[in-house]
């Protein structure tokens, strides 16, 4: 399989990942936020599978499948369940208004590109230019955790960061060893269970999932 095609697939994947990160930041409703988050998982799985196909790395198929099941389906579904059961207000409540967040996000993209330029010059992989995008995605995930009120949006931000790291792994090194990936996947699963438990406790104690109320 030609490296040209691989290049294009990863480029397109990177573009989509960045687009989805922006989309996550611009969403107003919880449900659509979850849809975009699920889409991110699916794109990630698709890119992983395609990279596996073009680089003849069968291990990547397994991680693609796990990614699809876990991040594309299971986690969004679990989060939706939590929202439904706990009667969380279905609107995303931003601390900084959305256009402003988008502008900050745009600045972060430029910043992460500048920061990763030296790394890119060192790398010889054809996919090196995705490092900047992965970095930007991590920063955007953090931005989301900072600028949104609810605990659930913070979890989504956290998971989006995890997704971007995974993407960086796939893009930069054609995937980590399968064992490491399985471990990470398992960690994420455990983390989400712990988050879920936390939500119940937080709500029982504070009768809300708004972080500001916990500080009082």
């Amino acid at each position: 399989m030609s490296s040209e095609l691989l290049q294009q697939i990863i480029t397109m994947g990177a573009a989509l990942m960045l687009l989805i990160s922006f989309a996550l930041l611009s969403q107003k409703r919880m449900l659509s936020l979850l849809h975009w988050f699920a889409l991110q998982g699916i794109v990630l799985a698709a890119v992983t599978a395609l990279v596996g196909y073009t680089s003849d790395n069968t291990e990547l198929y397994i991680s693609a499948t796990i990614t699809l099941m876990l991040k594309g389906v299971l986690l969004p579904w679990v989060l939706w369940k939590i929202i439904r059961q706990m009667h969380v207000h279905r609107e995303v409540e931003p601390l900084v208004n959305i256009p402003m967040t988008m502008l900050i996000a745009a600045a972060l993209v430029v910043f992460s590109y500048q920061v990763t330029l030296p790394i890119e010059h060192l790398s010889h992989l054809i996919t090196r230019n995705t490092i900047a995008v992965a970095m930007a995605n991590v920063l955007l995930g953090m931005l989301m955790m900072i600028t949104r009120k609810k605990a659930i949006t913070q979890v989504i931000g956290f998971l989006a960061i995890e997704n971007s790291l995974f993407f960086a792994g796939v893009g930069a090194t054609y995937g980590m060893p399968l064992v490491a990936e399985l471990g990470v996947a398992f960690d994420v699963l455990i983390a989400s269970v712990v988050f879920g438990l936390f939500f119940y406790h937080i709500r029982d104690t504070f009768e809300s999932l708004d972080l500001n109320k916990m500080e009082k």
Partner: protein
Amino acid sequence: MALNLALGALAISLFAAATAVLLVGKDNVARFTVFGLLAVSAGLSIASGMVGLLTHASVALSLPVGLPWLPMHTRLDALGAFFLLTIGALLIAVSIYSIGYVREYTGRKGFASLGVFMGLFVAGMQGIVLADDAFTFMLFWELMSVSSYFFVTFEHEHEENRKAGYVYLIMAHVSGLLILGGFATLYASAGSFEFSSMRDATLSPFWSSVAFLLAAFGFGMKAGVVPMHVWLPEAHPVAPSNASALMSGIMIKVAIFGFIRVVWDLIGVDGFQWWWGTLILLAGSSSAVTGVLLALQQHDLKRLLAYHSVENIGIILIGLGLGMIFAYYGHPLLAALGLIAGLYHTINHALFKGLLFMGAGAVLHATGTRNMEEMGGLIHRMPMTAVVFLVACVSISALPPFNGFVSEWLTFQAALLAPQLEGSLIPMLIPFSAAMLALAGALAATCFVKVYGIVFLGQPRSPSAADAHEIDGWMKFGMAIPAVLCLLLGILPTLFIPLIDAVPQLLIHASLSSSVHAHGWLWLTPVSEARASYSAPIALFGMLVLGGLIYWLLHPRGQVVRRVHFWSCGNPHVNTRMQYTATSFAQPLRRIFSGIYQPVEHIEIDRSDHKLLTRSIHYEVHAQDMSWRFIYRPLLALSERVSVWVAKQHQRGVHAYLAYMFVTILVLLAFLL
């Protein structure tokens, strides 16, 4: 020859001021003499500017006046010549206009002081562009600043005018101080006040940055760059309209001249740092957008126009900033394009903003109010004013084939060359600022639909608008000149750009002349034919022929068009109060950009008869200029706190005073160490 003409113009301006003093009380004679002389001075300015630009010569002359050890140095080079041309082009129109305009003051108030200060003001501006040493420059600079203060307070009966004058004076002085600091920095390394030795001196990067910052802030303050623009919307509306035409049209351009003179010429292109151009670019983009956004929320016609000056200064700075970036990265040709875009917009803005202020003066003259909410339907009562005002509106809205479009188009072309730069941060920033320019241009069009629609179209909103009358011949003639020039500069850029091309040749030794009309005079091709081309003559010709043809085809001859009551979706009971107002026109934008305006609304509903019957609704909304809230008020509070603290230190007991002396002695002794 050119310099002699220019000095002649300067002398005649001073003479005009003197005549105004001599002819106090003889208003009718003074009217013609003073403004006639100013028109002559303008004619000489234009002549010397043209000669200077055509001959590319830099002629210097030191006058035997001034300080004992420093005679006045004057010099006319391409840069000065271009600005003399700009000054002359608008001044000739304003002088003729003023002959009619000041008639309003004869008998009532007299205009001797207006004549005196206008002469001095013009002389100040002409002197600045001719100055060849820092002393002469500052002398004329202060002459310009101080005499324009008297325009602002000309109608000093009103309190708001005195307040505006005060703000204006403070800002003018702070800016003068900063500029002086800039010259001082240059003097420190040149060892002379003469510009020629400042040019030759080489500064360390640190000190050249200091000089740049001082000049940028000093001239930026005078030019009205956000957030130092606050004096502008206060001062320009209250001055008499002919004076505000000059202030908005050319005085703030003289600040641009000062900036180019100090940064591009004295510090020199070789001394640029990478962040200078970026700073100017960012200042320009934010001024452009903020200026137009604030303009949209004004309903005082002249205040609105003043905010538009802030916007247009921003557009000029975008061009200059692009030029500086390209010059730093060693692309002189592209730098020349940026510079020319900025200069082109400078003269364009002088023309259409001057025209708009003259038009506003005509409207003010006819209706007696600056409040747009009391106007309407003036196109029927002031047909000639309506036509020239429309020309200005179309020009400032950057619509082809008028001049505003050409300069913005050139700026876009310069911005599109960004990928040729090395590095990646700046090429990524430039498109963003081009997008801001696009936003500003389009919002300006929105704003001028509002201005024209509310002031000239629709139905009269007050009796004074219904009884408005057309202005006299002098004013009409004065306004026709810039209107024609706007169109000419719009359709013949290929003839005009080679003329201003002398300026980049002088400053960066690069010329656009060869590429600009490589494809013939019909097509404007700033860089190369394959990049972009624009032909205003063909577009205009096409529109005229096609429009004429359709009209000829469709127009049924010999048939009178039937006039009927308007339809308005079948509602016949529509009165003039039901029209859209200036406030309601800007409502969508007020809501969309509420984060920037933070509008304060105040609604009173009178239901005194019955809780279901509304007698009257009073609605008030104010959009705020955030720079007051976030910069100037805190600054005021801070200075107040500092002065209170200082005052307190003065009122301490004897021990405190002894302690002060003791500390002073200690400090002085410390210097001996």
